[in-house]
């Protein structure tokens, strides 16, 4: 019957006169061992028509003519092509690919065979990131992608992560890439009410990810126009394949500890240092309370001893009765659990992938936890030969138990500031607070406050693809990303915030709607003489709105009633709306000649509500070319070279990553004494528009010795013009800054990727993958003659300076202690007397002291397989950057105030002749505690990022148990970190002030977690 039906269709096609000789082909696709391969894509070349092999590797497809070419592709195998000719039965054996040259790579609004790419795209597959025990997929790809710098702000789970693809292009605009999930540009901006960021990308269960493509150069990214300048990350989720239903179950259990700790003074050392500091201050003022008892009253020494009495509570500091290790109290023994189930399969016409996942990860800080529950269904249906439609839908709930920002006394790691002589609890078992503790005791926050962020995240899309005629297909797609967030905060009566108001509650709701509709056409045509043409064109409209409503109440009867409903007084409330839209037209033409010469032209016209009426639309074109040398006769005889391609691209992309309405002159609402007011908030700039990045890229892809060695080398230059810049303006104007398009920035760099198959035998395999990248960022120009944008802060050093990298550390250079008197010294650094020193901080000139941007980043992966065991080791490194410890002025301040000090402060200057970098201890005299190079250190590190050891139960055993696969594994994350940085961890950028400029800063920031997990993976 089926056959008859096919015959009927064939007849119809014949009757149409256009497709003579249409007929059915059957066959089987097998792997290198001869076993049937299910799920292989078989496509008629130059069309979008295709089928999948069934569970046994069998397929059937109708082809229009004998000239038709069938393309057999499957992830991890070399794609093959076969001309139909007279055959009706075609059996194909696919060989596993070492390189991925034959793989299909997702590009913007389509896909392409990797071999044909002329742009720079990194492609990662599911198996490289699956089951990594981290909350966020960006952490799972760290060190695996050349030229992509990923850095967590700190070790709090679910919080902000920085990602820079080939460096930063903007000073004021966003430097984060555009993320597109199954065609939907998703919301990635933090919606946190506190100044520390959360990561909306943590809502994504990355076990659902099939592939992840990072578009790095202009050729790849220009089709994303005004949002392509920072690169684009395209995430494609898993789809079902025809054949038996496959179920995967994965269970994981893990444990985490901090990667590092710092050494602090114990009780005895604390008393010694601060007694000395107080006495030194007295001597400085001409008093000697030790040798002259009359000087004691009113002395600093008396003051300090009074403080010791206060801080030691019920205990006696004179005999070190209490010696509290506050740092230990900030951390917890963290555990994590992951349960993940998925099923996929389908028939010839309909395929599905469904999954459910639950993960629960503790942070290493007390009170920090991240839970995610998610489900997904991806459904595709071939309705007719011409019409295919489908839907992807995911729903996730994340619950993040957060802790206060790094700069709050309430955050756990600020416990280290408390004195070791202070007991944790009083004699009634209550936690001590001020005045016994030096500052607010963060443990009270842990007991008596809550900060729960709950997010419901719904990302989905429906699409339909219609084959208008052979080679021409039209796709219409509507996607939605709905982020619904609630933050519930409560501060009980004992907390810092709740104390004076009898408890405080805060509830805030955010809804971010982000929808995208687009229609585009793909046209593929094999012309005569080996010319292939592929065209993509379409338009897209995106609209996003953010609604926020919040309420604050104070005065709670008891701490158990935490909702604002129980508040005696509503003291605050607001509701806001903001929105943006993009309207875009895009196109791409790829042209290939004889499989050797590749050309591509692409472009996009973008309009956005974010820009001034004078500059609303921008055009972003790019062109590229590739030359597959290995197809040329002069190389085809060189057996060592299996593949070689040269590519070059040049193009423009934009950055529209600024706040909404930046071009308008605005007045915002305010209130005074219960009357409503208006205040100017922004000065207008009707010429405001995107910044443009012009990027040149040249690269070579190569495969040697039958692709046993393969790699890529790329060199690029990115020039960003019309920088979106918050230009500091004279404060006398009434404003601090104005958003302008001014200035230039450059990123130059190169990337090197090498993959080798070192050993390839039946029992033992060893593959190595290495990547290294260098990026050099330079600010070329600011506003006219402007040379510097100052940090405006007395505690931090990051600035923007012409001729330097963005965010360089700029300030006074510390010269240690004056050997004669222990004064802190700085190098003058004034012309002619650079190396002369001064004890007057203001007299020393500011110089560039360091750079938060790394010189080199990279990773080295070694994969071993011995029989049924496999072992994967990933080393990741970052070099050439510096870290500034903004907490240094408190933590390492030679006893300036009563914060507990790091142990290295014991090296303070004590008597004339002492040569040391730690000035004399002086209570309250600020001797050398100003922001300077004193608190700057090298941030290079090498990290054992991921070690996974697995055992796959052999199939002989599995068959008896009726299982498809069974794997037991162990994964270690950050097991070892090699660094000279003396802080907690070198991967750091304090959450409360992280920005484009403010990078590489430490401020009581939690270290990363060192995690060990055990897992079990069952397939049936």
């Amino acid at each position, binding site marked *: 019957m089926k056959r008859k039906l096919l015959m009927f269709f064939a007849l119809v096609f014949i009757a149409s006169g256009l497709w003579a000789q249409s007929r059915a082909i059957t066959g089987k696709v097998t792997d290198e061992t001869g076993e049937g391969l299910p799920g292989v894509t078989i496509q008629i070349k130059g069309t979008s028509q295709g089928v999948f092999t069934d569970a046994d590797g069998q397929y059937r497809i109708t082809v229009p003519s004998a000239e038709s070419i069938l393309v057999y592709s499957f992830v991890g195998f070399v794609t093959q092509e076969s001309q139909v000719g007279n055959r009706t039965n075609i059996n194909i054996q696919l060989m596993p690919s070492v390189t991925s040259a034959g793989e299909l790579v997702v590009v913007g609004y389509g896909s392409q065979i990797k071999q044909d790419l002329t742009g720079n795209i990194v492609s990662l597959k599911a198996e490289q990131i699956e089951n990594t025990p981290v909350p966020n997929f960006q952490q799972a790809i760290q060190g695996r992608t050349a030229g992509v710098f990923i850095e967590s702000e700190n070790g709090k789970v679910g919080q902000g992560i920085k990602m820079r693809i080939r460096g930063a292009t903007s000073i004021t605009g966003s430097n984060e890439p555009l993320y597109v999930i199954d065609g939907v540009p998703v919301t990635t901006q933090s919606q946190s009410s506190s100044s520390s960021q959360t990561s909306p990308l943590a809502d994504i269960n990355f076990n659902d990810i099939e592939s992840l493509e990072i578009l790095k150069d202009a050729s790849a990214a220009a089709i994303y126009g005004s949002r392509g300048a920072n690169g684009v990350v395209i995430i494609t989720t898993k789809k079902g394949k025809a054949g038996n239903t496959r179920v995967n179950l994965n269970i994981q259990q893990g444990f985490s500890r901090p990667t590092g700790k710092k050494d602090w003074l114990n009780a005895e050392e604390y008393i010694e240092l601060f007694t000395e500091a107080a006495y030194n201050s007295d001597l400085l003022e001409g008093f000697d309370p030790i040798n002259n008892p009359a000087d004691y009253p009113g002395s600093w020494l008396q003051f300090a001893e009074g403080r010791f009495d206060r801080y030691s509570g019920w205990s006696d500091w004179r005999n070190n009765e209490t010696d509290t290790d506050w740092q230990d109290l900030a951390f917890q023994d963290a555990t994590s659990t992951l349960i993940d189930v998925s099923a996929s399969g389908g028939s010839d016409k309909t395929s599905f992938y469904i999954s459910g996942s639950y993960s629960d990860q503790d942070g290493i800080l007390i009170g920090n936890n991240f839970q995610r529950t998610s489900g997904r269904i991806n459904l595709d249906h071939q309705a007719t030969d011409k019409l295919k439609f489908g839907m992807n839908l995911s729903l996730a709930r994340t619950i993040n138990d957060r802790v206060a920002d790094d700069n709050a006394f309430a955050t756990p790691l600020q416990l280290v500031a408390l004195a070791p002589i202070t007991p944790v609890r009083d004699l009634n078992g209550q936690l001590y607070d001020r005045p016994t503790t030096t500052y607010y005791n963060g443990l009270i926050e842990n007991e008596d406050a809550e900060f729960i962020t709950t997010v419901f995240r719904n990302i989905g899309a429906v699409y339909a693809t219609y084959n208008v005629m052979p080679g021409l297909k039209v796709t219409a797609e509507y996607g939605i990303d709905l982020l619904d967030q609630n933050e519930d905060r409560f501060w009980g009566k004992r907390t810092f915030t709740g104390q004076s108001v009898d408890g405080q509650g805060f509830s805030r709701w955010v809804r971010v709607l982000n929808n995208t509709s687009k229609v585009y056409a793909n046209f593929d045509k094999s012309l005569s003489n080996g010319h292939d043409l592929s065209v993509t064109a379409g338009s897209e409209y995106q609209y996003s709105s953010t609604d926020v409503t919040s309420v604050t109440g104070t005065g709670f009867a008891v701490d158990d009633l935490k909702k604002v409903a129980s508040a005696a007084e509503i003291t605050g409330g607001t509701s806001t709306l903001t929105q943006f839209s993009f309207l875009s037209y895009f196109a791409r033409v790829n042209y290939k000649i004889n499989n050797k010469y590749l050309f591509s032209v692409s472009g996009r016209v973008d309009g956005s509500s974010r820009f001034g009426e004078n500059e609303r639309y921008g055009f972003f074109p790019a062109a590229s070319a590739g030359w597959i040398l290995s197809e040329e006769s002069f190389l085809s005889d060189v057996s060592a070279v299996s593949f070689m391609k040269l590519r070059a691209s040049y193009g423009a992309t934009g950055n529209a990553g600024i706040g909404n309405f930046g071009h308008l002159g*605005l007045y915002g609402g305010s209130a005074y004494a219960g009357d409503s007011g*208006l205040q100017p908030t922004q000065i207008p700039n009707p010429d405001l528009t995107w910044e443009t990045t012009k990027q040149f890229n040249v690269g070579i892809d190569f495969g040697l010795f039958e692709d046993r060695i393969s790699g890529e080398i790329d060199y690029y230059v990115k020039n960003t013009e019309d920088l979106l810049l918050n230009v*500091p303006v*004279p404060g006398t104007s*009434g404003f601090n800054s104005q958003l302008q398009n001014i200035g230039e920035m450059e990123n130059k760099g190169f990337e090197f990727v090498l993959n080798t198959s070192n050993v390839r035998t039946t029992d033992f395999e060893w593959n190595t993958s290495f990547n290294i990248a260098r990026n050099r960022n330079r600010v070329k120009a600011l506003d006219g003659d402007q040379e510097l944008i100052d940090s405006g802060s007395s505690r931090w050093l990051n600035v923007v300076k012409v001729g330097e990298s963005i965010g360089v550390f700029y300030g006074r250079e510390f010269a240690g202690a004056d050997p004669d008197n222990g004064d802190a010294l700085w190098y003058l650094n004034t012309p002619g007397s650079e190396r002369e020193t001064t004890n007057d901080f203001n007299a020393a000139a500011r110089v560039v002291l360091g750079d938060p941007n790394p010189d080199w980043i990279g990773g080295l992966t070694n994969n071993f397989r011995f029989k049924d065991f496999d072992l994967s080791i990933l080393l990741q490194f970052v070099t050439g950057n510096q870290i500034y410890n903004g907490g240094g002025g408190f933590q390492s301040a030679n006893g300036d105030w009563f914060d507990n000090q790091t142990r290295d402060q014991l090296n303070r200057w004590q008597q004339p002749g002492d040569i040391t970098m730690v000035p004399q201890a002086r209570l309250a005299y600020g001797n050398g505690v100003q922001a300077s190079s004193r608190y700057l250190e090298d941030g290079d590190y090498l990290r054992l990022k991921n070690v996974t050891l697995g055992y796959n139960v052999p199939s002989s055993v599995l068959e008896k148990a009726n299982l498809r696969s069974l794997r037991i594994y162990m994964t270690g994350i950050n097991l070892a970190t090699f660094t000279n940085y003396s802080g907690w961890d070198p991967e750091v950028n304090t959450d409360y002030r992280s920005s484009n400029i403010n990078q590489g800063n430490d401020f009581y920031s939690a270290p990363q977690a060192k995690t060990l997990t055990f897992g079990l993976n069952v397939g049936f």
Partner: protein
Amino acid sequence: MDVKRNKMKKTVIHKFLALVIAIGLASCDDKLDLSPAQSIDEGQALTTDSNVKSVLVGAYNDLGNGSLFGGNILRDSELLAANGEIRWAGTFNGPREIFNKSMTVNNADVTGEWLQAYSAINIANNVLSAIDVVNAADRDRVRGEALFIRGVLYFELVKFYAQPYSAGNVNSNLGVPLVLEPTRAISEDSQVPRNTVQEVYNQVISDLTTAESLLPSSNGIYATDAAAAAILSRVYLQMGDYANARDAAHRVITSGNYSLTNTYAGAFNNDNNSSEDIFAIQVNNQDGVNSMNTFFSIPSFGGRDGDVDILQAHLDLYDPLDDRLDLFYMGNGAMRSGKWNNQFGNVTMVRLAEMYLTRAEANFREGTNVGATPLADINRIRNRVNLPSLLVVTLPDILLERKLELAHEGQAIHDLKRLQGTADGFAYNAPEMVYPIPQREMDANPSLVQNTGYGN
């Protein structure tokens, strides 16, 4: 055959083009015209009577900002003049630098006060620029209030960022830049140089004098003619112009709208203005901030950790019978001022007691008895705090009475400077006693000259 292929190609291309055009038409351009929901265009803000009045409220909101009269400029006045009577015991390094007289050019408080003051001045300038839009009946009042705010802030700026008037050379010593027009765009013209100390004082006197003449005597919690006169009395006192200081203070006293509170404690920690408040920043639990509470008070009253300790040297100045002594209390390990224990209480800018003290001092110095004898004015202050009347009064008596009465209310450094005193070993005109021009301002405005002792 060839013809056929060409035809087919053409058809395909036609269809493709038609499709792309259709897609293009489906979208439309007006979707890019979105408006903000929380803000209005600056064109709108100054076009109606009620909008301009709202902008005026915005200026008051800025005046009450934590960096300004919300408290920090009062706090920093006290810290600069500490002199062993108070101690900065908090962790913030901005106030510590001010306390130590070793300010860095990027001190956050120094920067914040500058930026906030000029922000408020710009709002006041905007109101003044749109004064014709205001209903005729209210025009004088609105103009007077805007001038009051501008005058008050230039007075604060010139006191902190320039050598004191008492240091002389007022025609050569640099004051602060005078900006009297609203900012509509940023240009070269925005790079305004500093005016002299004398020019700034002249502007302050002009603004406040005009304000006094325009403002009503009764204006709710907003500025009145008496408020302008009260600040004028301070300005003249600062300039050593005692006759004018005396007369301005006298005008406030004789307005009859203010009276001393029955008890000294009654003058502080008020949710609403007391009978003694001539002008106060309004704070409640929804808007406004009381930074004096934050730094002078302790956690149980909503303060930080007790960042300012009151030292014995200060307490020793009081007569043991003085009621004012009772306001001090032991909290968080040190003595504290009890004037700032209401987290949501108003922050007084100027109160009536100061007017009696100013009139007394000025009368004494001028040898006059305008309104009352110096002795009578001083005894009025003393009697409220249960101190016996003096029989004769000397200048030191008057100055001590002033110091104790107004302690920890933000007048310390200004009195110290006009009286040419010293604090912590620094003379009234030492460069360390003057704020630096903020580094960010020096970087943004090449026309500025830095103060002595702060590099170039």
